[in-house]
């Protein structure tokens, strides 16, 4: 495998360094994982909860990094699939009493499958229209969850989602306490990160970056860009749905509030603030923006104000930090022609 050419902690790098499609700094990883494994020995329940939340949000953030950081599509719909996964898991648990891993996988599948009919028409749209479309999806999700009372019990929400039951035959282990949640979520988050890294190191990952950098050029070299964009849209939905499942089993209550902009915005900030298009970006972001704000008990409103300033700062002060995102737009502005699908 290729050696890392660049450092992966890139929060303050002004330049956008070149990249072999993915580089992993193994020693930093090892140190990080070791620290995490020991965390429950040092941290009390309150802080462990904060970290669990951070790791739960890591999953939809990885999905957003995939679609935004690596494929260059600004989607604000991660919250839709997060909530969808949460509801799917909750419903499975409440109506069928299925064990946690089943609910987890179902949540991912449901989110991915719903993303298909949503993505097909949405991906015909360009730029701003696509963003607006994804916002519209969020609102529709809110409406459906509030009004499909038979399924979702509307604003009352679904409560009584079972604590995660991990079973092998006769032996069943129920996760209740904070450290247990911590290790469960840590394991799953680690798997998600591994899957993410595998994706971006694959030839498909290279295609994603190509689409981000210059879609028309990629198309002219034989990349079926629309197919990749749809698959990436579905994959990022799967990540989000899996995160939603964890959320449902952690908070044991799911209501239409899960579709609030609050969650989508948090996921966006995690990715943008943590380092878009970088391997550890979502990890750093979820730690900084979720764990820290939970631990410091920063109120949701104040958090949103901070996020707002972070967004402004990113756009104006650190444009190179968002360089991969804007590169494609800059190329498009410079113009190498309009494709047949471009006239909308």
């Amino acid at each position: 495998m290729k050696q890392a050419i660049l450092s992966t902690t890139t929060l303050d790098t002004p330049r956008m360094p070149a990249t072999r499609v993915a580089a992993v700094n193994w020693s930093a990883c090892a140190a990080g994982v070791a620290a995490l494994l020991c965390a429950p020995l040092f941290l009390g329940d309150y802080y462990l909860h904060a970290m669990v939340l951070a790791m739960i949000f890591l999953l939809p953030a990885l999905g957003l990094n995939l679609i935004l950081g690596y494929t260059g599509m600004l989607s604000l719909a991660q919250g839709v699939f997060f909530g969808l996964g949460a509801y799917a898991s909750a419903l499975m648990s409440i109506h069928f009493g299925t064990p946690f891993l089943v609910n987890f996988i179902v949540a991912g599948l449901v989110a991915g499958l719903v993303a298909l009919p949503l993505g097909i028409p949405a991906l015909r749209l360009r730029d701003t229209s696509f963003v607006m479309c994804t916002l519209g999806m969020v609102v529709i999700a809110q409406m459906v969850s509030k009004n499909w009372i038979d399924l979702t019990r509307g604003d009352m929400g679904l409560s009584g989602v079972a604590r995660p039951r991990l079973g092998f035959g006769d032996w069943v282990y129920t996760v209740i306490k904070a450290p247990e949640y911590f290790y469960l979520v840590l394991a799953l988050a680690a798997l998600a990160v591994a899957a993410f890294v595998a994706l971006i190191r694959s030839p498909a990952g290279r295609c994603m970056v190509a689409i981000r950098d210059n879609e028309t050029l990629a198309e002219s070299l034989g990349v079926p860009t629309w197919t990749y964009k749809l698959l990436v849209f579905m994959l990022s939905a799967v990540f989000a749905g899996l995160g939603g499942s964890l959320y449902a089993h952690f908070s044991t209550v799911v209501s239409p509030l899960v579709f609030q902009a609050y969650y989508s915005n948090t996921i966006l900030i995690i990715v943008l603030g943590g380092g878009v298009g970088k391997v550890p970006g979502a990890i750093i972001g979820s730690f900084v923006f979720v764990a820290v704000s939970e631990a410091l008990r920063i109120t949701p409103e104040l958090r949103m104000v901070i996020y707002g300033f972070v967004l402004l700062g990113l756009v104006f002060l650190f444009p190179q930090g968002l360089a991969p995102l804007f590169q494609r737009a800059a190329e498009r502005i410079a113009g190498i022609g309009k494709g047949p699908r471009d006239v909308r």
Partner: protein
Amino acid sequence: MSAESMLRIEGLRKNYGAVAALQGVDIEVRRGEVMGLIGPNGSGKSTLFDCCTGLQRSDAGRVLLKGVDITGWPMNRIAREGRFLRSFQKTVVFPTLDSEENLVLAGQMSRFPNVLSTFWVGPSARKRIQALRERAKELIEVTGLARVAHLPAGHMSGGQQKLLQFASMLMPEPELILLDEPLAGINPVLIEKVIQCIEHANKELGVTFVVIEHNTDVLMNLSHRVVVLHQGAKLADATPEEVVRNPEVIEAYLGG
């Protein structure tokens, strides 16, 4: 050079609003030849390329690649299945990837049978990518980009990007390449290099070329045949020697 038809353009028409960019153009490109395409600005050359390769949809007419009607095929299918590539007038590369990654990407799609297979990195995929990397390294050497190969392509100079773009064309081993002003904006030394690359690809690898170029001296030396476009219509279609002597061509383009 065989008599087999590589690319046949029949009655191609394209309008942009009231402007007729292409007014029923018929061209045949034979396998293994280098065809020059010249004409004043606005004569429809790039539009012709766009319509053949799927970047634009023509309003009328057909494009046949080795006898297969590819009119209306999406651009990526033409590139991948048709093994038919084109370069762009304004040099484009993937700016955040370095040279080797740019080239691997260019060659990648022809090596994998379908989209889903690109997601799984098993041993056979790894072997294919490794083969691509080796070929990429060769091309980097040949084009003299070794010194800047580690930089993100967006940081290379215009001339270097042009060479990289050219090398990208060769990676998937295409049969037909359309070059849109490959010599524009690069210094004389590099011009020599690019010409050598085109000739090598044509003579040793059998690649068919259609080249738009305003550097007519070079183009006349390079081409087996030359087509002249003027205001969206074909003005001449003959050997370079004949075209250079053609009075209509001289008046419209080459200058008296």
